[in-house]
């Protein structure tokens, strides 16, 4: 790569303190007044042509629009005129700049220039109209001189004047970007030093403002051109109701305008920076100007290539939806207006009937109420509908990102404007409200989350308890079944007041249980043994063993039920004695 060979650049040649004037781009003051052939070609030929071409591109769009309205418009001649007049305007501006005419001479210069342009405009149109029309018109002018200034000629002259002014303005602004020897601060020993230092901005041109002017002209010109091009491509009646169809294809003049415009802005930025560097005596190393141009072209080509790959159409009918919405709104408004008019007319007719003015008149036929607009028709697109939807999604995603980012940058770049806002009382209140809402929402969300967590936990607990409550004995293994029988008896015994204490072993408790159920002593013993075996042994518990335990369980359960009944039967007899004190 270039980094390997010829990469070592001897700066001594470029340093004005060591060897002045040997830099490629010229170091500091050496650049003033001396222009290279490339620079002359750029300033005198390429730049004027570029500006004229840009303006002609706008003129083409304008011509397309006017031609759509009036077929007689000499569009091609108008565009050629704009190009020629723009070139002439730039040349005149540069000439005036160079020759430094007096005001009187400048006025004379401009007057002559305009007479020539007007005559050119007047006669150039006959290239389109033909010689016969010229002969006829000349005859008409002889008869009536006022016919020389017909409306089409005046309109065209005004438009040409506008383009002439734009070309002159652009050229002058571009020229003002260049460094001028007058801007250089004289030596401190020079008598002009004081004068220079007391001048506004120390006699320096506000280049940033000039650059902004160029950019503004470029953007406004572009916007107007796009509007013209757009209007020339759609039917205005369809556009009003947003029912117009898509139009595709390259619009060459628009493409050329933006391409040249961006290159011109790039060159203007280079001129601006270069002038600043020259005024600060900063040496410029290497062929920066050439590289700049090449990089700008490469950069634009790269972006253009990337843009080609992105989708530019959409099939999700945004416009159709908008159109339907507008039609519905119009329909509702019309209905309201008709209703008001109806009421108003009824009242008036009532009064008129009182005055007998309406008698004998013919009844006007009733107009039918316009039907509501039909729902939007599906946009016919070639290819698979899924592919169309995907393309549309990509398109809208990119577009949303682009517009969103643009808004974001716009706000960020102008953040200083919004800094003062928090000081306003209303804004402070709104901010506090917003913070309060955020805090409240956050707290509510936290509370909700906590509650959900608690619910889940309790549900899990219930799920864990569930198998005990709704237990299916058939699904249990013999070991689990035996354990269940024993625990069931423990629960029942606890309900009757002689439950097993946590400190008791099953065998210790067996003695209490057997004493409590004298009718099922053996079964209680059997059940306890079965439980001990199922709980602590490792060998398999057979189904038979579980069945034996089940029999025992039933007996003990029965005994416990009988015991409870006995207890209940004993309690009502004692109660009246306690309450009434009677035997």
């Amino acid at each position, binding site marked *: 790569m270039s980094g390997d060979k010829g*990469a070592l650049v001897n700066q001594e040649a470029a340093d004005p303190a060591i060897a002045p004037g040997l830099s490629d781009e010229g170091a500091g003051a050496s650049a003033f007044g001396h222009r290279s052939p490339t620079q002359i070609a750029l300033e005198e030929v390429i730049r004027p042509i570029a500006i004229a071409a840009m303006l002609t591109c706008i003129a083409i769009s304008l011509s397309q629009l006017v031609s759509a309205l009036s077929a007689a418009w000499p569009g091609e001649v108008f565009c050629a005129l704009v190009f020629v007049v723009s070139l002439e305007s730039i040349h005149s501006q540069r000439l005036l700049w160079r020759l430094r005419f007096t005001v009187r001479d400048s006025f004379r210069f401009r007057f002559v220039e305009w007479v020539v342009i007007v005559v050119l405009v007047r006669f150039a149109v006959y290239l389109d109209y033909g010689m016969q029309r010229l002969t006829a018109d000349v005859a008409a002018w002889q008869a009536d001189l006022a016919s020389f200034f017909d409306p089409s000629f005046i309109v065209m002259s005004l438009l040409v004047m506008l383009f002439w002014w734009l070309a002159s303005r652009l050229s002058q602004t571009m020229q003002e970007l260049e460094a001028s020897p007058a801007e250089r601060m004289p030596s401190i020993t020079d008598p002009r030093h004081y004068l220079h230092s007391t001048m506004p901005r120390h006699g320096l041109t506000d280049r940033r403002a000039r650059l902004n002017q160029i950019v503004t002209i470029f953007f406004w010109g572009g916007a107007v051109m796009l509007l013209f091009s757009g209007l020339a491509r759609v039917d205005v009646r369809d556009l009003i109701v947003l029912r*117009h169809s898509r139009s595709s294809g390259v619009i060459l003049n628009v493409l050329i305008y933006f391409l040249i415009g961006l290159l011109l802005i790039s060159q203007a930025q280079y001129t601006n920076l270069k002038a600043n560097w020259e005024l600060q005596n900063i040496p410029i190393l290497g062929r920066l100007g050439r590289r700049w141009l090449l990089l*700008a072209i490469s950069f634009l080509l790269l972006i253009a290539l*990337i843009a080609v790959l992105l989708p530019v159409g959409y099939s999700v009918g945004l416009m159709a939806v908008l159109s339907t919405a507008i039609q519905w709104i119009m329909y509702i408004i019309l209905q309201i207006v008709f209703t008001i008019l109806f009421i108003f007319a009824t009242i008036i007719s009532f009064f008129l009937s009182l005055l007998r003015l309406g008698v004998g008149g013919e009844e006007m036929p009733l107009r039918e109420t316009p039907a509501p607009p039909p729902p939007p028709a599906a946009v016919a697109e070639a290819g698979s509908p899924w592919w169309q939807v995907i393309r549309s999604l990509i398109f809208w995603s990119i577009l949303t990102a682009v517009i969103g980012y643009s808004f974001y940058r716009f706000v960020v770049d102008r953040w200083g404007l919004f800094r003062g806002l928090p000081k306003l009382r209303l804004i402070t209140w709104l901010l506090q409200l917003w913070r309060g809402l955020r805090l409240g929402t956050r707290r509510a969300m936290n509370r909700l989350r906590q509650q959900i967590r608690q619910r889940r936990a309790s549900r899990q607990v219930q799920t864990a308890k569930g198998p005990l409550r709704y237990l299916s004995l058939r699904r249990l293994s013999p070991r689990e079944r035996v354990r269940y029988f024993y625990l069931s008896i423990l629960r029942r015994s606890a309900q009757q007041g002689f439950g097993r204490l946590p400190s008791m072993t099953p065998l210790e408790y067996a003695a209490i249980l057997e004493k409590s159920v004298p009718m099922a002593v053996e079964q209680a013993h059997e059940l306890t043994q079965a439980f001990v075996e199922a709980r602590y042994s490792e060998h398999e518990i057979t189904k038979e063993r579980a069945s034996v335990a089940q029999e025992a369980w039933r007996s003990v359960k029965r005994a416990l039920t009988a015991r409870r009944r006995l207890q209940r039967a004993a309690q009502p007899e004692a109660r009246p004695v306690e309450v009434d004190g009677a035997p």
Partner: protein
Amino acid sequence: MQNLLIFIIGLFLIAALFRVDFFFYLLYVLFGVFFLSQIWTDRTLRGIECKREYTDRAFLGERVPVKLHLRNKNLLPVGWLRIHESLPIQLRSPNFFNHVLSLLPKEKVVLHYELDCRRRGYYLLGPLVLSSGDLFGIHTRDTEIPSNDFLTVYPQIVPLAKLDLPAQTPFGSIPTKQRIFEDPARMIGVRDYQSGDSLRHIHWKTTASKGVLQVKRFEPAISIESQILLNLNRSEYSLSRVDTATELAIVVAASIANYLIEKKQTVGLCCNGWDLLSPEPQLITLPPRKGREQLMNILEVLARVRTADQFPFSDLLRQAKLHLTWGGTAIIITGHADEALFENMLLMKRGGFHVMLILVDPQTPFVTIKERAKEVGIRAYMIWQESDLDVWR
């Protein structure tokens, strides 16, 4: 080009309104110009690598060429790059180095500039400020590359031919008239034996040839172990001459150190200035050593040192005694000698040190000071300007 964003939004509206596909294409292009320019500008400065190549030590009056290596590590080219290297005003006028250039991907550029070492010191080269932007004037970025490159300019050295330094340390390399210090390694001849001569000094070969006892004669020699005590306390100099006098004191110290090292003597430095390598002022002490390395150490300290007012010179004198062996010489370089200094010097003298006083900013007539110094047995010199060093040439 900040209007570009507004234009993009406007273009979107126009494109959506007219449903012209080409307008959307333009929208992409313009947004691409804006967005990719930003990315390009951001990446440009991150990919620039800078390196300075130069000799980091120089003597006064030398010109130091500096090569500034710039390399674009990126695969993206740099449209334009403005470099602004800040430099010390003492080394270059104007005190910066500016340049504008463009860099292709992976391209290297070497820029050259020279520094004129007109004043001793320890100078930072840089920082280097890089500015760049896109080709359309939408985004501009600046970045400052912090520098860790320093240049040490040594103080001026005046070559001295003779310096009558009093010293008593025997077995040195400088001949002396005090015959009590004879160096047995330096035989200058023989003489007849006298009563009391050591038998070890008898030169047997000459004795055999002459037939009379001959003893070796040795050259009397001393070793001058010296400590330069440099006062750089601003408050102890007169206000009008503090800068000139302290600089002169540094020149004197450097010249004496150079002289002693050339004579292969041992020399050290004590100073109450501020070494710029230390974060805060503290007493500078270089214990007495021999050799070229010691001279360079002393010169580097003298190059970096600045005046300070934290430590009085009396503190320095107390500190210096610890580093000087008995019989060594304390070379005191200060602005003015008052009674307190004389008391300190007298104490040093009684402690077995030789003292030499060099004044660069006497605030009373030097004759009086010289008389007072003579009374206490100290040699005093006044150096008012560099040419006064001629007394030792």
